[in-house]
């Protein structure tokens, strides 16, 4: 006796999963973009003195130099264009004679959960 098992709908399931995974990737990419620009804004607000850190605005060059760069689909780098603002490290970390201001690291700690929320909210939109 021979038992013949035939699973129907395999190509359709494969196509469905493939479409969903592409959608998930697109959603994650959107979330990373949103989170990147959000963190950029938060760092600028921190420099402007709207957060717990000391205000670091004199000429406005530092505040204007904050950039969000997206090296690939699923990562974002928030940093400072160091060409006009070579003193960014000193402001962030302090020296033996200056107190650190921690605009970047405090923003990171404050918003680590928020970044996860951005990704979670986008992924939940997948139908």
């Amino acid at each position, binding site marked *: 006796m021979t038992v013949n098992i035939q699973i129907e709908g395999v190509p359709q399931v494969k196509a469905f999963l493939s479409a969903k995974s592409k959608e998930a990737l697109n959603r994650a990419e959107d979330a990373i973009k949103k989170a990147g620009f959000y963190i950029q804004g938060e760092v600028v607000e921190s420099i402007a003195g709207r957060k717990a850190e000391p205000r670091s605005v004199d000429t406005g060059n530092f505040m204007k130099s904050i950039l969000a760069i997206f090296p690939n689909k699923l990562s974002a780098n928030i940093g400072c264009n160091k060409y006009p603002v070579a003193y960014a490290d000193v402001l962030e*970390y*302090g020296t*033996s004679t200056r107190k*650190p201001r921690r605009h970047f*690291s405090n923003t990171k*700690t404050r918003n680590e959960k928020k970044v996860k929320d951005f990704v979670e909210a986008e992924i939940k939109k997948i139908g």
Partner: protein
Amino acid sequence: MAITSVASATFMSDTINLIRDKIKNNVTDPIASIRPGNEKFCLTSYPKRPCTYPIITITDRGTIQQGRLGMASEGTVLSIDIEVRIWARNVRERDELTQQVYDYLRTNQLDTTTGLSDSNLHDFSLMSAVNVDEPGEAGIRSKVCEYRFLVIIS
């Protein structure tokens, strides 16, 4: 009193003091024989008065609750970021001390009596190491290392 483990009620101070003690006892002070008696090699804040370099500062850089231990549990998992900053007289001294600290922390995680995991500091990770050098020949060379640990609070 020496801290041997991170307790739930005092997790912040315990973590800082434990790491300070571990570094103090296991990293060699290059000027131990000539350091003034009223100065320390390992500190838990940036020095406010003139001091003799090199020094190592261990400070808290923020805490994030990663999750709860269960739906009906009051226990949590926290990630604690610790900054270990090496302040040295030259680049070589800065890098050698950084290597010693990293090597000690990396190789003393899983020991059953003195390991960091046994002291409730799990999942050791070096998040970043950034150089901040002050200008001039006599400028202080420093390296800001950020370490992350997971702590179970129950």
